[in-house]
């Protein structure tokens, strides 16, 4: 009989990613993503409208507090659009991070009952948040047009920025997910950590406000490159900040690979400690 033979034995050390197996489970990824989206907006009046309200209202509040009261510089563009441009990628990052980090805990019932590549879970989080991102992105485009900004050729850099955004969110998400299964502290720390992290990225202020000497350290946060990149593309306040983006890309790749391998290393224990 030409049957596949599965060998189960204890594994040791670091493991690679079984891409073939992951592809076999692509339908699972798809349905879990659909489940994530549908379940989130089920039985709510505004439904997917929340994906618009969340970044929009936050930006309005920031505009009032940081733009009008604290008079934070917005590099010559209206503060609202300045901060909304940052808010769209940031919301994706923070939501994906939170969801991915909790994905193993919230799906503990699946992990302890069925086998499937566990990577599907953080991937699902990253994929289902893409819809929210797309909606918020559309809102951003509409607002840009309302404010009279024009699009130019720099748009070609957008896919690169989005890839960095994905790598960063998923990389950090996998890392935290693997940690959170065993150390529930991650879960408690996460919500306020994400809030604090926002102040370590140029969401409510421009990078130019950060003292020159610290900018290199500051830009180790890949979200700095992503956000400043978004501003360069849409607001044309500056040329493409390649130094931030370059550094950010390296850190993002490192974070992604590190997160992936750490996840795979810890994966064997998930069912036992979840």
């Amino acid at each position: 009989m030409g049957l596949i033979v599965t060998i189960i034995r204890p594994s040791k050390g670091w493991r690679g990613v079984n891409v073939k197996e992951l592809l076999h489970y692509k339908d699972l990824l798809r349905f879990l993503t659909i489940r994530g989206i549908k379940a989130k907006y089920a039985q709510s009046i505004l439904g997917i409208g929340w994906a618009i309200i969340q970044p929009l209202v936050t930006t309005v509040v920031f505009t009032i507090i940081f733009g009008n009261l604290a008079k934070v510089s917005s590099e010559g563009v209206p503060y609202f659009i300045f901060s909304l441009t940052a808010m769209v990628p940031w919301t994706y990052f923070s939501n994906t991070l939170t969801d991915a980090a909790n994905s193993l805990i919230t799906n503990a019932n699946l992990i302890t009952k069925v086998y499937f590549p566990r990577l599907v879970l953080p991937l699902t989080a990253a994929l289902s948040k893409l819809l929210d991102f797309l909606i918020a992105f559309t809102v951003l485009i509409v607002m840009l047009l309302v404010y009279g900004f024009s699009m130019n050729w720099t748009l070609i850099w957008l896919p690169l920025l989005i890839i960095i955004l994905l790598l960063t969110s998923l990389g950090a998400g996998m890392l935290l997910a693997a940690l959170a299964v065993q150390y529930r502290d991650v879960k408690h720390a996460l919500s306020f950590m994400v809030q604090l992290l926002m102040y370590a990225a140029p969401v409510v202020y421009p990078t130019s406000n950060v003292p020159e000497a610290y900018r290199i350290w500051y830009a180790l946060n890949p979200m700095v490159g992503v956000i400043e990149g978004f501003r360069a593309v849409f607001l044309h306040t500056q040329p493409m900040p390649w130094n931030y983006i370059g550094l950010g890309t390296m850190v993002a790749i490192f974070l992604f690979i590190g997160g992936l391998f750490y996840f795979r290393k810890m994966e064997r224990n998930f069912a036992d400690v979840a």
Partner: protein
Amino acid sequence: MAEKVISVKGLGKRYRVGTQEVFSDSLFHSGIQLLTSPFKNFRKLKSLTRFTGDDSSVFWALKDIDFEVEVGQVLGIIGHNGAGKSTLLKILSRITEPTLGEVRLKGRVSSLLEVGTGFHPDLTGRENVFMNGTILGMTKQEIDRKFDEIVAFSGVEQYIDTPVKFYSSGMKVRLGFAVAAHLEPEILIVDEVLSVGDIGFQRKCIGKMNEVAGSGRTVLFVSHNMAAVENLCTSALLLDHGKTFYLGSVHETVQKYISLFRPQTQDGFLGDGVERVGNGNVTIKEFWLEDNTNVKVDMVKSGEAVYLNFGIQSEIDSQEVDLGFSIHREEDDQMLFILYSSYTGKTFQLAKGTSTVKCKINSLPLPEGRFLVKAQAMSQGQILDFPKAGVGFMDVVEGDFYSTGQKSNKLTRDQPLFLVNGNWM
């Protein structure tokens, strides 16, 4: 010789059970503890997945398990709670990794450790079929192909586009099982799922499993229901404390399982050192059951006469001893009935030494199952003896309670607590 589809060699699984908590007895001490606890917690959590050194919190859920299963075989896996059955299933279904040893599986494996895994209450029945199916390893194409069949099998066609949170629990189980029943693995691993649902549903499950086994696939089946195991399986593996206790034909293995239970129970209840309440003048030393013909038996039948025998040791001549027993549900200790000899107007004079007191129940009004028997000896309102854990088990098997050959749970979905006979006019 038939082909081996599953071969397990030297399998072992180690767990770490909860490390001990330290309790503080003073405010100062608890303050210190509060400060140092993060470090301790860290070490404790870290140790969950590290196994250096041999300390007491390490526990082998499975050790040195070897067995082979041939194609088309239905292997029952039995054993007490904590014997390692679920751990074995989890390793075979790749949910958790073994610590030692190796397993070789030939063909696709589907494991059913739960019905309806991944169901989301807010999604419709249709969406959940796809969800659950893909979780169990099917592809969308496969589900598309079998969708109508699955829905027909589940019998919830009408509500297939309703969110499952509006389903009754029975409907959810039926839908979940319908999906599982349409998996086409070479190896099917089933855990106790048959214990849910009504009789009709259980019959459907057993039918489906027979069908799977009949079509040349291999089934591993874990259950506490010996009748189902004997009915379904060709051979069985008996696990005890994480080790293989017996592996053989299903009938022999089930017998071993039952005998494994016996000696443990009687000693456990009335042996030396069990916790008792009473002044010690009278001690209930033995308890056994006899059938109608006064032959000692392990199991009694519903509807038949049964004698409860109490062997009593008396230190002094005791007057007016009132002996009582009560029957309890095994799982939660719920008392079903109680009978003191004084209720029937009788007390006993016990001479110094040993004596036997019997009580005959004319027609045992209990359904199939295991019950706990407790007993107490009283005298003039004083407790003479009360073994706290009870005196033993009463295992009841299906009998002809109504003298018509009809079963007590023929038409209901729940097992009744009691049986009663009456005259319909």
